[in-house]
């Protein structure tokens, strides 16, 4: 019955909003696969050395700070780059939980149940995915078209500051700070709004699966 349609769901927004934040967050986390070894302080050179061949795995320790917390929540676990387009974040403490991003959706595993959320092509998400692709493929031009990029430090200890140029993305994401040494990325810090930030430190034992 074409004529009998309901008003579109303004109601869905809140739920969807949360999921989008969730997805954005996860995609940003995958950035840490991006620069395992940066030997030059030229962005192009840093990116040239960033190609990651799946499968790969890296352990992490993450601090999450926000205004509801009196102390940061500490998470540990590992990240997996299973194949091109398939990424997985597994939390081992303080609870078990896993997120798999694959084929346009996020699969959340919690307490033995899974829930799938579609990854639709929202503009901000596209931008961020584009940025990841840019880093994985060493395309410094594309990265610069989305972020203001600042590279500091030495080859043994460098830091890459990424600030979104789009005002829309900047409303939620203040910036990213990726740090590394001669061998790999050592940490990634994500700054959101309202004093909310996450720091993920990568553990050195990254070994092929």
């Amino acid at each position, binding site marked *: *019955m*074409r*004529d*009998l*349609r*309901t*008003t*579109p*769901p*303004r*109601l*869905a*927004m*809140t*739920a*969807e*909003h*949360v*999921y*989008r*934040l*969730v997805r954005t*967050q*996860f995609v940003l986390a995958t950035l840490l696969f991006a620069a395992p070894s940066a030997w030059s302080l030229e962005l192009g050179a840093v990116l040239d050395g960033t190609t990651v061949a799946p499968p790969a795995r890296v352990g992490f320790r993450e601090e*999450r700070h*926000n*205004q*509801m*917390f*009196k*102390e*940061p*929540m500490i*998470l540990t676990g590992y990240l997996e780059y299973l194949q091109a387009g398939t990424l997985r974040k597994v*939390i081992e403490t*303080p*609870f078990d*939980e896993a*997120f798999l991003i694959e084929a346009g959706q996020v699969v*959340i595993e*919690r307490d033995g149940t899974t829930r799938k959320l*579609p990854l*639709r*092509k*929202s503009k901000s998400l596209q931008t961020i995915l584009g940025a990841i692709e840019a880093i994985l493929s060493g395309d410094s031009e594309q990265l610069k078209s989305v972020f203001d990029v600042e590279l500091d430090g030495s080859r043994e200890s460098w830091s890459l500051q990424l600030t979104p140029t789009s005002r829309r993305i900047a*409303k*939620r994401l203040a910036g990213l700070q990726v740090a590394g040494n001669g061998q790999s990325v050592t940490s990634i810090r994500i700054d*959101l*709004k*309202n004093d*909310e930030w*996450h720091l993920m430190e990568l553990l050195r034992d990254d070994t092929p699966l």
Partner: protein
Amino acid sequence: MKPSLSTAWQRSILWLAAASLMILVLAARLEVSFDLSAFLPQQTTLTHDILIEQIRKGPGSRLLVIGVSGAPQDRLAEASEQLRQTLSANPAFVSVLNGELPDDSATVPEPINRYYLLMRDIDYSLASLQRAVQARLQDLAFGAGSALLDLIARDPFLVTLEILESLAPVDMGGDLWFAADGSAVLLAETRAASIDIAAQSEAVRAVRNAFAAVPAAKALSLDVTGVGAFSVELQEIIRAEATKRTVLATSALLLVLLVVFRSPRLLLLATVPLGMGFLAGLALVSLVFDQVHGITLAFGFTLLGVAVDYPLHLFSHAQHDSGQVAMQRIWPTLRLGVLSTVIAYLALAFSGSQGLAQLGLFTAGGVTVAMLATRAWLPLLLPKRQASRTLAPEVKHAPMLRYPAAVIVLLVAVVAVLGTVEGGLWDDELSSLSPVAVERLAADRSLRAAAVTPDMRYQLVMHNTSLETLLQASESADRLLAEAVDEGLLENWQSVSQMLPSLQSQQRRQDAIPAAEVLQRELSEALIGTPFRADAFDTFAAGANTARTLPALTPSGIVDTPLRSWLDSHLLQLGGEWVSLISVVLPRPDELAERVSGWNIGADLVDLQASSVELMRDYRNGALRTILVASLIIIALLWFVRGQFRQTLWIGLTVAASLAATIATITMLHGNLTVIHLVALLLVLGLGLDYALFLSRSESLRERRATDKGVLACAASTTLAFGILAGSSIPLLKFLGLTVASGALISYLVAYSGSRLLRKTVS
């Protein structure tokens, strides 16, 4: 016997007084509506009631669908966003959406924002709070952002999300809406009802103004569709067309009169019965109905078509005699014709839709008064003639009535119809009764399709005079449907009780909320050993305390909220009954229907699509039955009055052949038939009867010439006037015009060719 001048004056004053009275009635009573659903059938069953109500006032009816095209997507996206912002600020709109999630989307809409704790059963025990706090920590291991934090702080159980998800019929992706043709699409819900034409007109203007303010708007094009927009368009089209086509049709009519009678005075007089009929018909309709439809008002004049024939017959016969003598001669035939026409139109008045009832009543009343004016007033106004001196009793001849022509036409037409029509003679789409052009409806569908809206085909229907009883039954249905979902009988559902619980449930949930200090103590305990600050959930505690004493949520508390549309689509008030509509998503229909019948909660699974086809079939069958009965009455009447079986047979055959040929013509031109064609065919029946009655009269040669002339003038004027109507852009009028124009022509040709030769003499 010549009337004295004073008699003519007396009559005229009497008629003018009657006209003034009718004008007074109109001034006091006439109220015009442009309701698009006026030609939909009047309801017979609850299901049909629901169907019509959904179309008239359903959630979609207050939506304006806006399409912007003519530029690359990026450009259209900017225009779409700007339109959304401008219109959102306009109080005429409840909400304006373009598919994107607005930045303030963390705002929970009312009444959920206030009442969420009364919409679900919540366990406030310590263990339950601990589980919730733990689950929120897990959420925060993945998600982030102030929207999520605010949500968790006020609702650790995330009941709000659960409610929102259950009410949302589709998953909204957050992408801008684009139609298949590339147009950016927005949906603007107006505060005013779709039948409030002034407010809808304002809203459409607001959209146009907002569009004009978009940078480089001139390069873009705008389309606004939806029930409200179409009503506004219909009003504009009727205004434009009523003037243009009435002027054209009247001019054509006058031209024919001038050519045939060559007298300006007769021209003027011919309009007198028509004018009186128009006034009387309209006054009658405005007395019987609260509102007169724009279509009845604007085109009633043309619909009276057949009434123009009466003065024409009179004038033809009055060329050699005084008006009164001529009237005496044609009166028996005229009376019979009018009576038959009135019977046919009264049948229309009972055929099942308000629009048709108005047309039927209008025409029946108008035709009767036009006949009376022709009979009692017009002859007195005709120029006086010397009575014929050589008045030897004239020899009357009965025309030779030939059957073969009519029989051949009938057979050919039936064969043609059978050959043309595939898959049934009738168009059973409800949309075929809309006065909105097919292309506009298609544009609306294509734009709407961009905004993913759910299929509402299957509904679980429950009703009760008591809202509370109904809501409790709906809550039972919620529980049973949840089980049915687990068994795979359906995918999901939306019911009114998911947002508007029964008073009983609201009370129970209020009672379950612990006292402020108890809740605070439990919360503090639940937060021990977590990273959360002690005051992290203070917003929740305060909200819970407020919810304990909230006045119960009722339908009137939802009227001014963004969820009003949602409520309207799931809770209706029909007469004294409250009706709950539970939309069932992707059911296995047969199995679910069987399961539902065993629930004993007074619920029925209804397939609205099947129901709509059934509604149309019932409507059309009802109309056909009424018309058939009317036709039988007319034939019986003819036989009774004329008393000649063969003549009655000839008239019946002639009219039947003309109707069949008309049907064949319009199926070739329009495809399937709608109820509107039926209406037009009724008018053709009236015209055909009129011609056949006059052409089968026994009369003198001189009279016969007058009759021929009169009938020709009638057929020519009707064909011309309705031919002009056939050019209308309103489908309803186009169908009427073409059917009647071709029908009048065919009826004349069939009747004339079947009755030309004079043969035997009677005294």
